[in-house]
């Protein structure tokens, strides 16, 4: 990287310009954080750390707490991951390893097309198709027989944490699927053939190559999906029920951080109210950052272990 003296001026300019762009990205992130922090000061002053654990959201009395929103964002996102990861990884394996050639392109094309649908369309589809189906086919029978389990407690309304989780899972499947396919495709053909030539079945072959080679990549894909799920706003608010309460049952309505900001920001009057919404934005920002940093860290460990293993 040593710079040659009397080097090309164009090179120097190019380097400086790209450097400035890179710095600009960093600067924007810092600026975003700073503005969020500044605007949330009135709420921080009034509520302090108790904001994180308070479950009341009362705009009339100006008493605010973020607990139900944090809970709703986390639960709906993890539910989405729980559904989407096995589905996407399974589909990726099928498309890459088993599907007849004429099927590969249309199936993967259609799956990736899901990523191009605007979230408001997902939301509308959620209200009019997904929620009634989930309510009548899944939630009502389950709550009838398994309602004693706190997770499935009724009464069933339709819009719920479960509906949000399922809808989110459909929205993040294309991301996890396409990254998983890329990861599977990086496995050297010779390694696969080696397992098969030693008398391994296809299942054993997959288990070994995935276990050895693909786990970090699939984990990365999962984090990509999680990032999208945490910040999704429109589709979630349309099916989650928008009830600021942290309830264990997945069949009950909940709320998410992004949704409450989108819902209440335009009509929020009063400094503390507005500032509380900004503070929720700050928490969401910090949460996404934390998830990504943790993921990076785990990923490094995984890659290190995987490369040792082979």
């Amino acid at each position, binding site marked *: 990287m040593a710079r040659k003296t009397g080097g090309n001026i164009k090179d120097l300019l190019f380097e400086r310009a790209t450097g400035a762009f890179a710095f600009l990205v960093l600067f924007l992130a810092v600026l975003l954080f700073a503005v969020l922090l500044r605007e949330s000061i009135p709420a921080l002053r009034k509520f302090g750390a108790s904001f994180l654990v308070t479950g009341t959201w*009362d*705009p009339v009395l100006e008493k605010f707490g973020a607990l139900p929103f944090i809970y709703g964002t986390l639960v709906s996102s993890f539910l989405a991951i729980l559904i989407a990861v096995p589905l996407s990884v399974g589909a990726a394996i099928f498309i890459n390893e088993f599907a007849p050639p004429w099927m590969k392109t249309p199936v993967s094309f259609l799956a990736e097309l899901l990523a191009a649908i605007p979230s408001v369309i997902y939301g509308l589809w959620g209200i*009019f198709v997904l929620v009634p189906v989930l*309510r009548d086919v899944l939630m009502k029978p389950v709550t009838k027989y398994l309602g004693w389990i706190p997770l499935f407690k009724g009464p069933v309304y339709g819009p719920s944490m479960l509906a949000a989780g399922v809808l989110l899972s459909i929205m993040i499947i294309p991301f996890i699927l396409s990254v998983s396919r890329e990861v599977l495709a990086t496995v050297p053909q010779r390694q696969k053939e080696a397992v098969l030539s030693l008398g391994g079945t296809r299942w054993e072959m997959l288990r070994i190559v995935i276990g050895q080679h693909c786990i970090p990549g699939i984990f990365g894909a999962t984090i990509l999906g999680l990032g999208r799920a945490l910040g999704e706003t429109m589709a979630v608010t349309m099916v989650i029920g928008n009830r600021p309460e942290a309830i264990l049952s997945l069949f009950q309505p909940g709320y998410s951080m992004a949704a409450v900001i989108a*819902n209440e920001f*335009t*009509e929020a009057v009063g400094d503390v109210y507005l500032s509380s919404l900004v503070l929720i934005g700050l928490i969401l920002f910090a949460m996404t950052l934390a998830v990504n940093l943790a993921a990076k860290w785990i990923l490094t460990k995984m890659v290190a272990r995987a490369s040792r293993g082979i």
Partner: protein
Amino acid sequence: MKKIYGVLAGVLAMLAVASFASAADPLTINGAGATFPYPLYSKWFYEYSNANPGVRFNYQSIGSGGGIKQITAGTVNFGATDAPMTEEGMKKLPGAILHIPTALGAVVPVYNLDGVPAGLKFTPDVLAGIYLGKITRWNDPKIAELNKTVTMPNADIVVAHRSDGSGTTDIFTNYLTTVNTEWRAKVGRGPSVNWPVGIGGKGNEGVAGVVKQTPGAIGYVELAYAKQNKMKVGSLRNKEGLFVAPTLEATSAAAAGMAKSMPDDFRVSLVDAPGKESWPISGLTWILVYKDQKDEARGKAIVQFLKWAIRDGQKMEAALDYAALPKPVVEKVDVALKQISFKGKSLY
């Protein structure tokens, strides 16, 4: 090469014409605020600009709160709101402001009950009881005794409300606060409140979606929205003890009932208005303009437009499902418009 020069010359000529035309551009009046009257205002702006090509309008329907913020900051020429400004809010203003009523809206209860026709009767206490979570089943004796001709189903009531901050919610909760002491003590009024029960839907369409998709659901939406989507609407007992169905006429009647006691600044709530035909959950929507205009031409254009809006404009309201201002109110507004001035000179 010649061709390219020809094209270039053409482009230059067009640019010249465009810049010349922009010198004679119509006056643009910027406004921002309430979403509820947006369809009406769009129609007004279109019709008015057609008749008066010298004036153009640019209206951002960002919500009443946003409209108040922008007129306070002076970034728009007029604001629009569904809830009158508070005393506190008006203290922050750089000058005196006028609330000019332009139209009336009504909020109506809608429900989804198989086998139950439209027009189910509610009293203020029953409606408040449902939204407080105290009446939880449709065959509750309090509902059944009001509707003896209907067999009420033995079903859970699913309560739906708006999740986004809105003037509709403000009018609805203002009504419940006015008619029910328990609601006043526990919840209060505002564009968003801490709902004791229920599911939140985003926008009128969100509430309508929950109601339509959920058997046994009740919600509240704007009258226009309920009408256009052919939803089952309930009737409500008003201040005089009579059950009225929500119609444009009943909404105008609420304003007429209030006309006598209407303050000169028009910052009045129409909920639970007197009058035999009055629909009790009605409200005004206002345009906010400063009394002292900074720009004579703009100020004049706004005043002329408002004069037109409360006369010719009112005739367009019914077609768009807004209730027109009753005559006594129009006369009162006309007086207020004369106060808008530039350097002490009325712009009327």
